[in-house]
C-alpha cells in the first residue's frame, strides 16, 4: 500500500510540474524576447514608428498618472466604506447585508463592462473625451471592491479588546480611530492598496474605451494616453513587427507587477491573498 501511495505522490507531482511549464515558458519567452530591446533609452524615449522602435517613456508617465488618479479616488472612498462596514453598522443589520451584496456584485462585474460604463459616463456624458482622467476614474470604480475587502479585513483584525479598552477610557470614536484602529490596521491597508494598484496596472480592456491609445507625452489629465498594458496589446495585435517591443514592454510591466506582489507580501506580512 505504501508503494501505491508513493506512486500516486509521484504522478501528482508530475502533474504539478507540467502545470508549471506554461508560466515558466511565459517568463522565458517574455524575458528572452524582451531583454534584447530593454535598456535605459527604451524606458525614457518616445515611441517611434507606431512603437516598433524608440521607447516607452510617455507610456510609463501615462500609466503612472492613471494609477495616481485611480488610487487617489479609490483610497479615501474605499477606506471610508471599510470603516463604515466595520465600525458603524450592525453586522446582522439590513444595511450591512445590502452593502455586502452590492460590493460582491461590484466585484463580479467584468472589466469590459466597467469599460462600457466609463465610456458612457465619463467620456460621453461628462464630456471628458478619451482622457487619463476618465481612465483613472473608471479604474477606481473597478478596484474599489478589492480595496474595500482588503481594508475591511485589516480593520477587523484589530482585537475587540482594544475597542473595549478605548470605550472604558471614554475615548471618542474619532480618537479611537486615529490613535488605535488605523495605526493597527495600517500594514493591512497598505497591502490592500498595493494589491489594488497591481490590479489597476494589469488592466487593459477598461482603458481601451476610456483613456484611449495616444502615445504622446501627456500634457494634462484631459489628454488621452495609453498605459503599458494597452501598449503591449496594440503592439502585439495591430502593429506588424511590434513583437520585440511588445515583449520588452511586457517585461517592464511584469517587473512592476512582481515588485508590487513582493511589496504587498512584505508589508502585509501574511499570505498572498488574491481575493477578487
Amino acid at each position, binding site marked *: 500500500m505504501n508503494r501505491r*501511495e508513493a506512486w500516486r505522490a509521484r504522478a501528482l507531482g508530475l502533474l*504539478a510540474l507540467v502545470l508549471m511549464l506554461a508560466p515558466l515558458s511565459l517568463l522565458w519567452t517574455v524575458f528572452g524576447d524582451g531583454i534584447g530591446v530593454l535598456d535605459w533609452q527604451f524606458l525614457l524615449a518616445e515611441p517611434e514608428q507606431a512603437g516598433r522602435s524608440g521607447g516607452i517613456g510617455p507610456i510609463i508617465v501615462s500609466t503612472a498618472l492613471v494609477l495616481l488618479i485611480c488610487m487617489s479616488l479609490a483610497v479615501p472612498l474605499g477606506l471610508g466604506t471599510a470603516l463604515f462596514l466595520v465600525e458603524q453598522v450592525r453586522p446582522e443589520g439590513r444595511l450591512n447585508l445590502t452593502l455586502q451584496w452590492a*460590493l460582491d456584485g461590484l466585484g463580479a462585474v467584468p472589466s469590459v463592462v466597467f469599460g462600457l460604463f466609463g465610456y458612457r459616463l465619463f467620456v460621453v456624458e461628462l464630456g471628458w473625451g478619451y482622457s487619463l482622467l476618465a481612465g483613472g476614474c473608471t479604474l477606481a470604480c473597478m478596484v474599489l471592491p478589492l480595496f474595500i475587502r482588503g481594508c475591511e479585513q485589516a480593520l477587523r483584525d484589530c482585537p475587540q479588546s482594544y475597542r473595549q479598552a478605548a470605550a472604558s477610557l471614554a475615548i471618542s470614536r474619532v480618537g479611537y480611530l486615529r490613535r488605535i484602529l488605523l495605526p493597527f490596521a495600517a500594514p493591512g491597508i497598505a497591502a490592500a492598496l498595493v494589491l489594488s494598484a497591481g490590479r489597476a496596472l494589469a488592466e487593459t480592456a477598461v482603458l481601451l474605451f476610456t483613456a484611449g491609445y495616444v502615445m504622446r507625452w501627456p500634457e494634462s489629465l484631459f489628454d488621452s494616453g495609453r498605459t503599458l498594458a494597452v501598449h503591449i496589446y496594440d503592439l502585439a495585435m495591430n502593429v506588424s513587427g511590434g513583437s520585440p517591443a511588445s515583449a520588452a514592454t511586457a517585461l517592464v510591466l511584469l517587473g512592476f507587477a512582481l515588485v508590487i506582489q513582493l511589496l504587498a507580501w512584505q508589508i502585509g506580512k501574511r499570505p498572498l491573498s488574491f481575493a477578487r
Partner: protein
Amino acid sequence: MSISTPLSLRSNLDWLLRAASLGCALTAAVVLLLILLFLTQASWPLLQQPASLLGASWQPANGLFGLQAMLGASLLSSLLALLLAVPAGLLVSIWLIFYAPAAVARVYGAMLGLMASIPSVVYGLWGLVVLVPLLGAWLPPGASLLAAGIVLALMILPLLMVQADVALRESARRHLPAALCLGVSPWSAIRRVLLPAAWPRLWPAILLQLGRALGETMAVLMVAGNVVQWPGSPFAPVRTLTANIALEMSYATGPHLQALYLSGWLLLVLALLLMALARLYGSRT
C-alpha cells in the same frame, strides 16, 4: 450601556465621521446601480426586441445583431477552461497539502502567487507568440477555442487553487484523523471523505472563477482568432462577446453601439447571477 452600542455621538467629529463614512459606503453601492442603469439604458431599444438578438449572424453593417454564436463561444471557452483547470487544480492542491515536501510546497505557492499577478494581456502575448503557433503546427490555424480555453484555464488556476487549498485544509482538519483511524488509506480518505466534505466550499469558488473566465477580454481576444461562428471543433477560431466589444467599440455607432452595450449587459447579468448563486450556495453551508 453595552460596549457595542455607539459610545457617544456627543462630539461633532464623531458625527461627521459617521456621515462621511456612510457617504463613502453609499457611493460604492451607487456605482453598481449606475452601471446597471447605464447599460440597460444604452441597450434599451434592442432589449425590447429580443427575437432579433437570438439570430446566428452578426452583420452590423446590415443591421443584423445576432449574438448567439458569440454567446456560445463565451460559454464554451469558459466551460472548457473550467474543464481543464478544475481537475488539474484540485489534484495539484491535494498534492501540495498531503504529498509534497513542505519546502517544495512553499516554492510552488510562491510560483502560484506570481502566476496570479501576471497581467492578462501578458498571458495573451504568450498565447499569441507561443501557444497559437504550437497548436497551429499540430492542427491549423492555431488561434482557436482550445487556445482560448487553455489561456483562461491558466488565468483562473491560481485563484482556484488558493480557494481549494483553504477548503481542503479545513475539511482535513475536521475529518482526516477520524478517517485515518478507521484504517483507510490516505488516498481513499481524500477521495471519499475530504473531497465530498469540501465540495460545498469548492462550488462557490468554481462559480466565481466561471464568472471571471466569462468576463475576461484581452487574453481571449489575442488567442481566439475572432471569427464569428459556432465552432465545429475545439480547433476552430471563435469570437467571444467580450472580444467583440473590445474589437468594435472604437468605431461602432447607432444600433451597432447599442448591440455592443447589450452584449455588455448580457455579460453583466450573467456575472451577477453567478455571483448570487455562489453567495447563496456559500451561505447555505
